[in-house]
Protein backbone atom coordinates (compact mmCIF):
# COMPACT_ATOMS: atom_id res chain seq x y z
CA UNK A 1 0.00 0.00 0.00
CA UNK A 2 1.16 3.47 -0.77
CA UNK A 3 0.78 4.75 2.75
CA UNK A 4 3.08 2.23 4.38
CA UNK A 5 6.25 4.10 3.49
CA UNK A 6 6.00 7.26 5.60
CA UNK A 7 5.41 8.41 9.11
CA UNK A 8 8.37 6.65 10.78
CA UNK A 9 9.74 7.49 14.25
CA UNK A 10 12.97 9.02 12.90
CA UNK A 11 15.14 6.57 14.92
CA UNK A 12 16.23 9.16 17.51
CA UNK A 13 15.67 6.73 20.40
CA UNK A 14 17.68 4.03 18.63
CA UNK A 15 20.55 6.41 18.05
CA UNK A 16 20.31 7.57 21.66
CA UNK A 17 20.34 3.94 22.83
CA UNK A 18 23.48 3.29 20.78
CA UNK A 19 25.10 6.41 22.25
CA UNK A 20 24.16 5.33 25.77
CA UNK A 21 25.59 1.89 25.13
CA UNK A 22 28.94 3.51 24.35
CA UNK A 23 28.51 5.72 27.41
CA UNK A 24 27.80 2.68 29.58
CA UNK A 25 30.90 0.97 28.23
CA UNK A 26 33.02 4.02 29.07
CA UNK A 27 31.52 4.28 32.57
CA UNK A 28 32.11 0.55 32.95
CA UNK A 29 35.78 0.94 32.08
CA UNK A 30 36.14 3.76 34.61
CA UNK A 31 34.36 1.73 37.27
CA UNK A 32 36.45 -1.30 36.51
CA UNK A 33 39.62 0.77 36.81
CA UNK A 34 38.52 1.76 40.31
CA UNK A 35 37.54 -1.80 41.22
CA UNK A 36 33.80 -1.23 41.09
CA UNK A 37 31.49 -3.61 39.27
CA UNK A 38 29.35 -1.68 36.79
CA UNK A 39 26.48 -4.06 36.50
CA UNK A 40 23.77 -2.24 38.45
CA UNK A 41 21.68 -5.36 38.86
CA UNK A 42 24.58 -7.64 39.68
CA UNK A 43 24.92 -9.03 43.15
CA UNK A 44 28.26 -7.81 44.43
CA UNK A 45 30.82 -10.41 45.41
CA UNK A 46 30.36 -11.15 49.10
CA UNK A 47 32.66 -9.54 51.63
CA UNK A 48 34.72 -12.06 53.55
CA UNK A 49 34.32 -9.96 56.69
CA UNK A 50 30.56 -10.20 56.54
CA UNK A 51 29.23 -11.56 59.82
CA UNK A 52 26.98 -14.05 58.04
CA UNK A 53 30.05 -16.09 57.08
CA UNK A 54 31.09 -16.47 60.69
CA UNK A 55 29.68 -18.81 63.24
CA UNK A 56 30.29 -18.82 66.95
CA UNK A 57 31.71 -22.18 67.99
CA UNK A 58 32.62 -23.31 71.48
CA UNK A 59 35.90 -25.23 71.31
CA UNK A 60 35.03 -26.95 74.59
CA UNK A 61 31.73 -27.31 76.48
CA UNK A 62 32.32 -24.38 78.85
CA UNK A 63 34.92 -22.46 76.90
CA UNK A 64 34.07 -19.01 75.54
CA UNK A 65 32.70 -19.13 71.97
CA UNK A 66 35.10 -18.37 69.13
CA UNK A 67 34.27 -16.67 65.84
CA UNK A 68 34.97 -19.16 63.05
CA UNK A 69 34.97 -18.45 59.32
CA UNK A 70 32.64 -20.72 57.36
CA UNK A 71 34.39 -21.28 54.02
CA UNK A 72 31.63 -23.39 52.45
CA UNK A 73 29.02 -20.73 53.22
CA UNK A 74 31.26 -18.12 51.62
CA UNK A 75 31.92 -20.27 48.53
CA UNK A 76 28.19 -20.78 48.12
CA UNK A 77 27.58 -17.01 48.32
CA UNK A 78 30.33 -16.40 45.74
CA UNK A 79 28.74 -18.93 43.39
CA UNK A 80 25.32 -17.30 43.79
CA UNK A 81 26.77 -13.86 43.14
CA UNK A 82 28.52 -15.22 40.03
CA UNK A 83 25.18 -16.42 38.67
CA UNK A 84 23.83 -12.91 39.15
CA UNK A 85 26.49 -11.28 37.05
CA UNK A 86 29.09 -10.45 39.67
CA UNK A 87 31.82 -11.99 37.57
CA UNK A 88 33.52 -8.78 36.64
CA UNK A 89 36.94 -10.30 37.14
CA UNK A 90 38.82 -7.27 35.89
CA UNK A 91 37.09 -5.02 38.42
CA UNK A 92 37.74 -7.54 41.17
CA UNK A 93 41.41 -7.81 40.22
CA UNK A 94 41.73 -4.02 40.23
CA UNK A 95 39.97 -3.83 43.58
CA UNK A 96 42.56 -6.18 45.07
CA UNK A 97 45.40 -4.11 43.60
CA UNK A 98 43.89 -0.87 44.91
CA UNK A 99 43.35 -2.36 48.37
CA UNK A 100 47.00 -3.28 48.34
CA UNK A 101 47.96 0.30 47.37
CA UNK A 102 45.77 1.75 50.16
CA UNK A 103 47.28 -0.69 52.61
CA UNK A 104 50.76 0.19 51.37
CA UNK A 105 50.18 3.90 51.96
CA UNK A 106 49.01 3.14 55.50
CA UNK A 107 52.01 0.90 56.12
CA UNK A 108 54.43 3.57 54.86
CA UNK A 109 52.89 6.19 57.13
CA UNK A 110 52.95 3.76 60.03
CA UNK A 111 56.61 2.84 59.47
CA UNK A 112 57.67 6.48 59.21
CA UNK A 113 55.78 7.64 62.31
CA UNK A 114 56.77 4.57 64.32
CA UNK A 115 60.40 5.37 63.67
CA UNK A 116 59.74 8.92 64.91
CA UNK A 117 57.99 7.53 67.99
CA UNK A 118 60.79 5.08 68.75
CA UNK A 119 63.41 7.83 68.37
CA UNK A 120 61.48 10.03 70.78
CA UNK A 121 61.10 7.14 73.19
CA UNK A 122 64.79 6.30 73.04
CA UNK A 123 65.80 9.88 73.89
CA UNK A 124 63.21 10.23 76.65
CA UNK A 125 64.08 6.84 78.12
CA UNK A 126 67.80 7.60 78.17
CA UNK A 127 67.23 11.00 79.75
CA UNK A 128 64.94 9.45 82.32
CA UNK A 129 67.48 6.75 83.13
CA UNK A 130 70.32 9.26 83.57
CA UNK A 131 68.07 11.51 85.59
CA UNK A 132 67.14 8.63 87.88
CA UNK A 133 70.83 7.74 88.26
CA UNK A 134 71.74 11.37 89.05
CA UNK A 135 69.10 11.54 91.71
CA UNK A 136 70.10 8.21 93.11
CA UNK A 137 66.70 6.64 92.58
CA UNK A 138 67.75 4.12 89.95
CA UNK A 139 66.04 0.85 90.77
CA UNK A 140 63.44 2.53 92.98
CA UNK A 141 59.67 2.94 92.77
CA UNK A 142 60.08 6.50 91.52
CA UNK A 143 61.87 5.19 88.45
CA UNK A 144 59.13 2.63 87.95
CA UNK A 145 56.54 5.44 88.11
CA UNK A 146 58.45 7.32 85.47
CA UNK A 147 58.71 4.23 83.29
CA UNK A 148 54.99 3.70 83.72
CA UNK A 149 54.24 7.19 82.48
CA UNK A 150 56.60 6.74 79.57
CA UNK A 151 55.11 3.40 78.64
CA UNK A 152 51.62 4.86 78.79
CA UNK A 153 52.70 7.69 76.52
CA UNK A 154 54.38 5.21 74.21
CA UNK A 155 51.20 3.12 73.98
CA UNK A 156 49.18 6.22 73.19
CA UNK A 157 51.78 7.10 70.57
CA UNK A 158 51.50 3.65 68.99
CA UNK A 159 47.71 3.96 68.83
CA UNK A 160 48.04 7.47 67.45
CA UNK A 161 50.36 6.17 64.71
CA UNK A 162 47.89 3.42 63.92
CA UNK A 163 45.06 5.97 63.66
CA UNK A 164 47.09 8.21 61.37
CA UNK A 165 48.02 5.26 59.14
CA UNK A 166 44.41 4.16 58.97
CA UNK A 167 43.31 7.71 58.13
CA UNK A 168 45.87 7.91 55.34
CA UNK A 169 44.40 4.74 53.79
CA UNK A 170 40.86 6.05 54.17
CA UNK A 171 41.76 9.44 52.69
CA UNK A 172 43.31 7.73 49.72
CA UNK A 173 40.27 5.54 49.17
CA UNK A 174 37.96 8.55 49.45
CA UNK A 175 40.08 10.60 47.06
CA UNK A 176 39.89 7.77 44.49
CA UNK A 177 36.17 7.51 44.98
CA UNK A 178 35.78 11.24 44.32
CA UNK A 179 37.93 10.91 41.22
CA UNK A 180 35.77 8.06 39.95
CA UNK A 181 32.56 10.03 40.48
CA UNK A 182 34.11 13.02 38.77
CA UNK A 183 35.15 10.94 35.75
CA UNK A 184 31.74 9.31 35.44
CA UNK A 185 30.16 12.76 35.59
CA UNK A 186 32.46 13.95 32.83
CA UNK A 187 31.53 11.00 30.64
CA UNK A 188 27.87 11.77 31.15
CA UNK A 189 28.59 15.32 30.12
CA UNK A 190 30.13 14.13 26.88
CA UNK A 191 33.81 13.40 27.57
CA UNK A 192 35.08 10.48 25.53
CA UNK A 193 35.75 7.21 27.33
CA UNK A 194 39.44 7.08 26.40
CA UNK A 195 40.10 10.62 27.56
CA UNK A 196 38.30 9.88 30.82
CA UNK A 197 40.37 6.73 31.38
CA UNK A 198 43.62 8.62 30.82
CA UNK A 199 42.48 11.39 33.12
CA UNK A 200 41.37 8.87 35.76
CA UNK A 201 44.72 7.07 35.69
CA UNK A 202 46.54 10.36 36.13
CA UNK A 203 44.22 11.34 38.98
CA UNK A 204 44.80 8.00 40.71
CA UNK A 205 48.56 8.48 40.52
CA UNK A 206 48.17 12.02 41.86
CA UNK A 207 45.94 10.81 44.69
CA UNK A 208 48.49 8.21 45.75
CA UNK A 209 51.36 10.67 45.71
CA UNK A 210 49.43 13.47 47.42
CA UNK A 211 48.13 11.32 50.24
CA UNK A 212 51.51 9.67 50.73
CA UNK A 213 53.26 13.05 50.76
CA UNK A 214 50.72 14.67 53.07
CA UNK A 215 50.73 11.75 55.46
CA UNK A 216 54.49 11.43 55.57
CA UNK A 217 54.97 15.16 56.06
CA UNK A 218 52.96 15.12 59.24
CA UNK A 219 54.87 14.13 62.34
CA UNK A 220 53.99 12.96 65.77
CA UNK A 221 53.60 15.51 68.53
CA UNK A 222 56.13 15.54 71.31
CA UNK A 223 54.87 12.26 72.78
CA UNK A 224 57.13 12.27 75.83
CA UNK A 225 56.93 16.02 76.40
CA UNK A 226 55.62 15.78 79.94
CA UNK A 227 58.33 13.34 81.00
CA UNK A 228 60.99 15.56 79.47
CA UNK A 229 59.46 18.57 81.22
CA UNK A 230 59.61 16.81 84.60
CA UNK A 231 63.23 15.81 83.97
CA UNK A 232 64.13 19.37 83.02
CA UNK A 233 62.41 20.78 86.09
CA UNK A 234 64.34 18.36 88.26
CA UNK A 235 67.60 19.34 86.61
CA UNK A 236 66.78 22.99 87.24
CA UNK A 237 65.97 22.29 90.85
CA UNK A 238 69.24 20.43 91.23
CA UNK A 239 71.12 23.33 89.70
CA UNK A 240 69.42 25.82 92.00
CA UNK A 241 70.13 23.63 94.98
CA UNK A 242 73.78 23.38 94.06
CA UNK A 243 73.95 27.15 93.70
CA UNK A 244 72.27 27.63 97.06
CA UNK A 245 74.67 25.22 98.66
CA UNK A 246 77.63 27.07 97.16
CA UNK A 247 76.54 30.70 97.58
CA UNK A 248 74.51 30.25 100.75
CA UNK A 249 72.04 33.06 101.44
CA UNK A 250 73.45 35.38 98.74
CA UNK A 251 71.72 33.35 96.05
CA UNK A 252 68.02 34.31 96.06
CA UNK A 253 65.76 31.34 96.65
CA UNK A 254 62.71 30.71 94.47
CA UNK A 255 60.40 31.27 97.38
CA UNK A 256 61.54 34.84 98.07
CA UNK A 257 61.83 35.93 94.46
CA UNK A 258 58.35 37.37 93.97
CA UNK A 259 57.13 34.09 92.49
CA UNK A 260 59.20 34.45 89.33
CA UNK A 261 60.97 31.18 88.68
CA UNK A 262 63.96 30.73 86.48
Amino acid at each position, binding site marked *: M*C*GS*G*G*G*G*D*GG*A*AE*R*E*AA*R*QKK*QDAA*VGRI*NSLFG*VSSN*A*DATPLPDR*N*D*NRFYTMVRPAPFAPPE*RTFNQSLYDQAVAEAGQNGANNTEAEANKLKLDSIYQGVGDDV*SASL*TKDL*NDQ*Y*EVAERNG*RFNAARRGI*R*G*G*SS*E*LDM*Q*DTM*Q*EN*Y*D*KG*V*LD*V*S*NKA*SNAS*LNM*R*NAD*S*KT*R*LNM*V*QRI*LQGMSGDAAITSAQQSMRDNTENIRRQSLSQSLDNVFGDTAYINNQRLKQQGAQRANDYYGTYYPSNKSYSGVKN
Partner: protein
Amino acid sequence: MCNPAAIALMAASTAVDYKNQSDATDRMNKEIGLSENRNDKFSQSIINASDKNLEQYNPDTRIENLQTNQDKSEKSLTDALTTARDNQASNSVAAQGKVSDTYTNSKAERAIKRAKAGADLAKMISKVRAPTTLRNDEQQENAKASTVMGTQAQQRSDMARASGYDIENASKLNPSMQLISGLLRGASMAYGGAGGAAGTAGKTAVSSSSFGGAIG
Protein backbone atom coordinates in the same frame (compact mmCIF):
# COMPACT_ATOMS: atom_id res chain seq x y z
CA MET B 1 -24.96 19.05 -7.65
CA CYS B 2 -25.13 15.64 -6.09
CA ASN B 3 -22.94 13.83 -8.54
CA PRO B 4 -22.51 10.28 -7.16
CA ALA B 5 -18.98 9.97 -8.57
CA ALA B 6 -17.94 13.21 -6.91
CA ILE B 7 -19.42 12.06 -3.65
CA ALA B 8 -17.67 8.70 -3.94
CA LEU B 9 -14.34 10.36 -4.65
CA MET B 10 -14.81 12.74 -1.77
CA ALA B 11 -15.74 9.84 0.50
CA ALA B 12 -12.62 7.98 -0.63
CA SER B 13 -10.54 11.08 0.07
CA THR B 14 -12.05 11.35 3.53
CA ALA B 15 -11.41 7.65 4.14
CA VAL B 16 -7.75 8.06 3.16
CA ASP B 17 -7.48 11.07 5.47
CA TYR B 18 -9.08 9.11 8.26
CA LYS B 19 -6.75 6.17 7.71
CA ASN B 20 -3.76 8.48 7.58
CA GLN B 21 -4.72 10.12 10.86
CA SER B 22 -5.60 6.84 12.47
CA ASP B 23 -2.22 5.37 11.48
CA ALA B 24 -0.43 8.46 12.80
CA THR B 25 -2.28 8.17 16.08
CA ASP B 26 -1.40 4.46 16.32
CA ARG B 27 2.24 5.16 15.57
CA MET B 28 2.27 7.98 18.10
CA ASN B 29 0.63 5.82 20.75
CA LYS B 30 3.11 3.03 20.03
CA GLU B 31 6.03 5.46 20.39
CA ILE B 32 4.56 6.86 23.58
CA GLY B 33 4.23 3.29 24.89
CA LEU B 34 7.84 2.50 23.97
CA SER B 35 8.99 5.72 25.53
CA GLU B 36 7.09 4.99 28.73
CA ASN B 37 8.52 1.47 28.84
CA ARG B 38 12.04 2.80 28.47
CA ASN B 39 11.32 5.43 31.09
CA ASP B 40 9.94 2.76 33.43
CA LYS B 41 13.07 0.65 32.96
CA PHE B 42 15.31 3.58 33.86
CA SER B 43 13.12 4.46 36.82
CA GLN B 44 13.07 0.87 38.00
CA SER B 45 16.83 0.66 37.69
CA ILE B 46 17.18 3.80 39.80
CA ILE B 47 14.75 2.42 42.38
CA ASN B 48 16.65 -0.91 42.45
CA ALA B 49 19.97 0.86 42.98
CA SER B 50 18.42 2.98 45.71
CA ASP B 51 16.84 -0.06 47.40
CA LYS B 52 20.09 -1.98 47.24
CA ASN B 53 21.92 0.99 48.73
CA LEU B 54 19.34 1.35 51.47
CA GLU B 55 19.93 -2.22 52.63
CA GLN B 56 23.09 -1.05 54.34
CA TYR B 57 21.01 1.30 56.51
CA ASN B 58 18.97 -1.52 57.97
CA PRO B 59 19.48 -1.04 61.74
CA ASP B 60 20.36 -4.71 62.25
CA THR B 61 22.92 -4.58 59.45
CA ARG B 62 24.39 -1.37 60.85
CA ILE B 63 24.72 -2.86 64.32
CA GLU B 64 26.45 -5.90 62.83
CA ASN B 65 28.75 -3.74 60.70
CA LEU B 66 29.53 -1.47 63.62
CA GLN B 67 30.49 -4.48 65.72
CA THR B 68 32.58 -5.95 62.89
CA ASN B 69 34.40 -2.63 62.43
CA GLN B 70 35.00 -2.38 66.15
CA ASP B 71 36.36 -5.92 66.33
CA LYS B 72 38.63 -5.34 63.33
CA SER B 73 39.84 -2.03 64.68
CA GLU B 74 40.47 -3.44 68.15
CA LYS B 75 42.43 -6.34 66.71
CA SER B 76 44.47 -4.03 64.50
CA LEU B 77 45.29 -1.67 67.40
CA THR B 78 46.09 -4.50 69.81
CA ASP B 79 48.34 -6.07 67.20
CA ALA B 80 50.08 -2.72 66.74
CA LEU B 81 50.66 -2.48 70.49
CA THR B 82 51.91 -6.04 70.73
CA THR B 83 54.30 -5.61 67.83
CA ALA B 84 55.59 -2.32 69.24
CA ARG B 85 56.14 -3.91 72.66
CA ASP B 86 57.94 -6.87 71.15
CA ASN B 87 60.28 -4.53 69.30
CA GLN B 88 60.69 -2.42 72.41
CA ALA B 89 61.59 -5.45 74.52
CA SER B 90 64.28 -6.53 72.09
CA ASN B 91 65.77 -3.00 72.02
CA SER B 92 65.46 -2.12 75.70
CA VAL B 93 68.56 -1.50 77.77
CA ALA B 94 68.98 -3.90 80.66
CA ALA B 95 69.19 -2.34 84.13
CA GLN B 96 72.82 -1.85 84.98
CA GLY B 97 74.02 -2.60 88.46
CA LYS B 98 72.13 -4.55 91.03
CA VAL B 99 68.49 -3.79 91.59
CA SER B 100 66.26 -5.22 94.27
CA ASP B 101 63.93 -8.14 93.75
CA THR B 102 61.09 -5.84 94.76
CA TYR B 103 62.00 -3.59 91.87
CA THR B 104 62.19 -6.49 89.41
CA ASN B 105 58.91 -8.01 90.59
CA SER B 106 57.17 -4.67 90.69
CA LYS B 107 58.39 -3.91 87.20
CA ALA B 108 56.97 -7.20 85.92
CA GLU B 109 53.64 -6.57 87.65
CA ARG B 110 53.43 -3.09 86.23
CA ALA B 111 54.21 -4.43 82.75
CA ILE B 112 51.22 -6.76 83.02
CA LYS B 113 49.01 -3.92 84.26
CA ARG B 114 50.31 -1.69 81.50
CA ALA B 115 49.54 -4.32 78.88
CA LYS B 116 45.98 -4.58 80.16
CA ALA B 117 45.66 -0.79 80.25
CA GLY B 118 46.96 -0.70 76.66
CA ALA B 119 44.40 -3.29 75.58
CA ASP B 120 41.63 -1.31 77.32
CA LEU B 121 42.78 1.85 75.58
CA ALA B 122 42.80 0.01 72.23
CA LYS B 123 39.26 -1.16 72.90
CA MET B 124 38.11 2.36 73.74
CA ILE B 125 39.73 3.83 70.65
CA SER B 126 38.25 1.09 68.48
CA LYS B 127 34.79 2.04 69.78
CA VAL B 128 35.47 5.65 68.83
CA ARG B 129 36.82 4.65 65.42
CA ALA B 130 34.11 2.15 64.50
CA PRO B 131 31.33 4.68 63.70
CA THR B 132 33.70 6.73 61.54
CA THR B 133 34.71 3.62 59.62
CA LEU B 134 31.08 2.62 59.28
CA ARG B 135 30.11 6.04 57.94
CA ASN B 136 33.03 5.97 55.56
CA ASP B 137 32.08 2.53 54.24
CA GLU B 138 28.52 3.71 53.83
CA GLN B 139 29.69 6.76 51.92
CA GLN B 140 31.67 4.50 49.60
CA GLU B 141 28.55 2.45 48.93
CA ASN B 142 26.56 5.67 48.47
CA ALA B 143 29.10 6.77 45.90
CA LYS B 144 28.69 3.51 44.00
CA ALA B 145 24.90 3.81 44.12
CA SER B 146 25.00 7.45 43.10
CA THR B 147 27.06 6.54 40.01
CA VAL B 148 24.38 4.11 38.92
CA MET B 149 21.50 6.39 39.86
CA GLY B 150 23.11 9.49 38.35
CA THR B 151 23.94 7.70 35.11
CA GLN B 152 20.47 6.23 34.83
CA ALA B 153 18.81 9.57 35.58
CA GLN B 154 20.92 11.36 33.01
CA GLN B 155 20.29 8.66 30.41
CA ARG B 156 16.58 8.65 31.16
CA SER B 157 16.47 12.37 30.55
CA ASP B 158 18.46 12.08 27.30
CA MET B 159 16.33 9.17 26.16
CA ALA B 160 13.14 11.09 26.97
CA ARG B 161 14.32 13.91 24.74
CA ALA B 162 15.11 11.46 21.93
CA SER B 163 11.76 9.75 22.44
CA GLY B 164 10.08 13.14 22.16
CA TYR B 165 11.54 13.58 18.68
CA ASP B 166 10.38 10.08 17.73
CA ILE B 167 6.88 10.73 19.03
CA GLU B 168 6.71 13.98 17.10
CA ASN B 169 7.92 12.22 13.95
CA ALA B 170 5.55 9.31 14.39
CA SER B 171 2.58 11.62 14.86
CA LYS B 172 3.15 13.30 11.51
CA LEU B 173 0.76 12.36 8.73
CA ASN B 174 2.04 10.24 5.88
CA PRO B 175 2.64 12.68 2.98
CA SER B 176 1.98 10.00 0.32
CA MET B 177 -1.44 9.34 1.76
CA GLN B 178 -2.05 13.07 2.02
CA LEU B 179 -1.24 13.37 -1.66
CA ILE B 180 -3.66 10.58 -2.56
CA SER B 181 -6.34 12.17 -0.44
CA GLY B 182 -5.73 15.49 -2.15
CA LEU B 183 -5.89 13.95 -5.61
CA LEU B 184 -9.15 12.21 -4.78
CA ARG B 185 -10.59 15.46 -3.47
CA GLY B 186 -9.39 17.30 -6.53
CA ALA B 187 -10.96 14.70 -8.80
CA SER B 188 -14.17 14.98 -6.87
CA MET B 189 -14.21 18.69 -7.47
CA ALA B 190 -13.33 18.17 -11.10
CA TYR B 191 -16.50 16.20 -11.56
CA GLY B 192 -18.23 19.43 -10.93
CA GLY B 193 -21.03 19.90 -8.53
CA ALA B 194 -18.73 18.75 -5.90
CA GLY B 195 -19.39 21.84 -3.89
CA GLY B 196 -22.00 20.08 -1.88
CA ALA B 197 -19.83 17.06 -1.46
CA ALA B 198 -16.86 19.21 -0.67
CA GLY B 199 -18.94 21.16 1.75
CA THR B 200 -19.96 17.94 3.46
CA ALA B 201 -16.56 16.39 3.27
CA GLY B 202 -14.88 19.58 4.44
CA LYS B 203 -16.37 19.06 7.86
CA THR B 204 -14.75 15.68 8.26
CA ALA B 205 -11.51 16.13 6.37
CA VAL B 206 -9.13 17.05 9.12
CA SER B 207 -5.87 17.43 7.32
CA SER B 208 -5.98 19.32 4.11
CA SER B 209 -3.18 21.71 4.60
CA SER B 210 -0.91 19.91 2.18
CA PHE B 211 -3.35 20.38 -0.63
CA GLY B 212 -2.83 24.05 -1.08
CA GLY B 213 -6.21 25.03 0.28
CA ALA B 214 -8.12 23.25 -2.48
CA ILE B 215 -10.90 22.61 -0.08
CA GLY B 216 -12.54 25.76 0.45
